[in-house]
């Protein structure tokens, strides 16, 4: 199961949104990866990998999830990526 999402927070997938993203990914059993247009998919549970993607505001990322709760996990992660700063 996969989904393509455009990043809304102005800081991109940075410190705080990245932390929210990783913390959310850890709440589910599904194996989840995230990739930008230029990068290979990385483990969505790894703060280091997610940060190193250097995904900016307006960039599109591809989420891939496998597991029983894959769909809810993708919904939750999409919500993180489309919530502007300060409104979470």
């Amino acid at each position, binding site marked *: 199961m996969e989904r393509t999402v455009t990043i809304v927070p102005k800081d991109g997938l940075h*410190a*705080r949104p990245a932390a*929210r993203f990783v913390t959310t990914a850890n709440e589910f059993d599904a194996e989840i990866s995230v990739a930008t247009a230029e990068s290979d998919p990385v483990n969505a549970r*790894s703060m280091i990998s997610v940060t190193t993607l250097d995904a900016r505001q307006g960039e599109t990322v591809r989420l891939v999830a496998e597991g029983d709760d894959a769909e809810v996990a993708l919904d939750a992660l999409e919500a993180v990526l489309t919530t502007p700063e300060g409104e979470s």
Partner: protein
Amino acid sequence: MSVELTGTGVTPRVGFGNVIWHRGVTDLPPLPDPKTVDTDEEIARFEAACERGHDELADERDQTRDRLGEDEAEIFDAHRAFLDDPEITGSVEVAIENGLPAPHAVRQAFEDPIARLAGLEGQMAERADDLRDVRDRLLRILTDRERTDLGDLPDGAVLLAERLGPSDTAQLDPEAVAGFATVFGGRTSHAAIFARSLGIPAVVGVGDELGQVGDGRPVLVDGTDGLVVIDPDESARNRVGDEETEIIPNHVTTTDGTEIEVAGNVGTLAELDTANEQGADGIGLFRTEFLFLDRDAPPDEDEQYDAYVEALSAFPNDRVIIRTLDIGGDKQIPYLDAPEEGNPFLGTRGIRRSLGSDADLFETQLCALLRAGSEGNLAVMFPLVSHVEELDAALSLVEDVAEDLIEDGIEHKIPEIGVMIETPGSVFVAESLASRVDFCSIGTNDLTQYVMAADRENEHVADLHDPLHPPVLRAIRRTIEVSHEGGAWVGMCGEMAGDPELTELLVGLGLDELSMSAVTVPKVKSTLETIDAEDARERAERLLRSETRTEVRRLLSEGTDE
């Protein structure tokens, strides 16, 4: 000659003070033989360290939220995510299985990720600082090192560090620190953001040259021009913010002519000059602990004598109050065997050690002090006295030492003698103590800790550790009243004495002397010159009737509106 170093200024403010270095924790003990490393045990150690790291981060998050808001607090969520990162935990486990002990495994596992983040551009590179912060936290926990207590820096300190991470700045008391400068970091580093949020003068990214600035050196941190000025001259110091007041070299009086002595607290010989330059009327607290630190054996009598004479010659016309060795509690000296104590703040501290396990040291120190007594206007005071017999014992030792010096024909003079009032016990017998000595000096930091039963080091009770709580104010008032009746003059040498917002209250309570970090001397002096002592007494009377700190604060702020 002053020296200027350049970096990135991050706050349009200028600060001045004495250097305190905050050093990192990446130096580890040498590697043991891999065969002696118990893999399971090391993994368990690592897991326990992660757990403790999580607990600390949760606490610091709360603290930061209270101080700077939710936005800044969220940085700690990033730290928690780094702490749980499968990439890190995976490589740590592999490294331990290859025979590394947990701390070395942690250091190695973070190397590559830190390098990767640091290699990214702009803001991303700053996130490497977060990763370093997480690594250093784990290393500190694993090597069982005490956290440097950045929350308890002396007033007016300028903090220097390679980097300051969120966990460091969360502890910093913005009221106490005069500024900071770092070797690394840019405008968006956590340290820079923190400095701007709280208006602390700061310069980041100064580079390796910052390392040449030693502890205790006077420096100016100019956040406007991005300068760190070592040994600044007077014209450079005039750049210190608009709020900086003119230095008043003479003794000052209140509007009705009551003279209050405004003295400096010093913890190193270098600070004597600063105190002089800031116009201090002598020294109200000369901490002798620094003479005993960073060495393998205590200084002998002659070395101590030289240091005391140096302090006296820095203030030839003023009194210099030297406090005898005050160790124990949170201050330990490695070569002096200290017992393991479950509750060191209630253990063998201050005068208790001087009359007990450190009796020899105490005698040597008294010899040096009595000899120095003939070289200037010296006063000596004893720390942490809690009942009369302790003072009697110390006083009779002074007499013994004087007799020995007479026998040996050595020039000396018994100085003015005082007692510190910093325990509830000493407050309740202050009249008896005062009748035996020339002066009392109220140490508000410890007095607050002991009256409120709130550990100075414990952030969870930080709110209790405030001298504006009525129990502390009433202890101070009692001390002053009964000490005066006992014929002693009374000073104050805790942080409270250097707060210009409280100067009127302290005058109203009847203090004869206030001693503080040198940097606050000018402001307190100029404040004193605007105070009418009689008005201050009436206002203090009213304020002392307050039953709650809230009411105390309300009355204090009413005063400033009038």
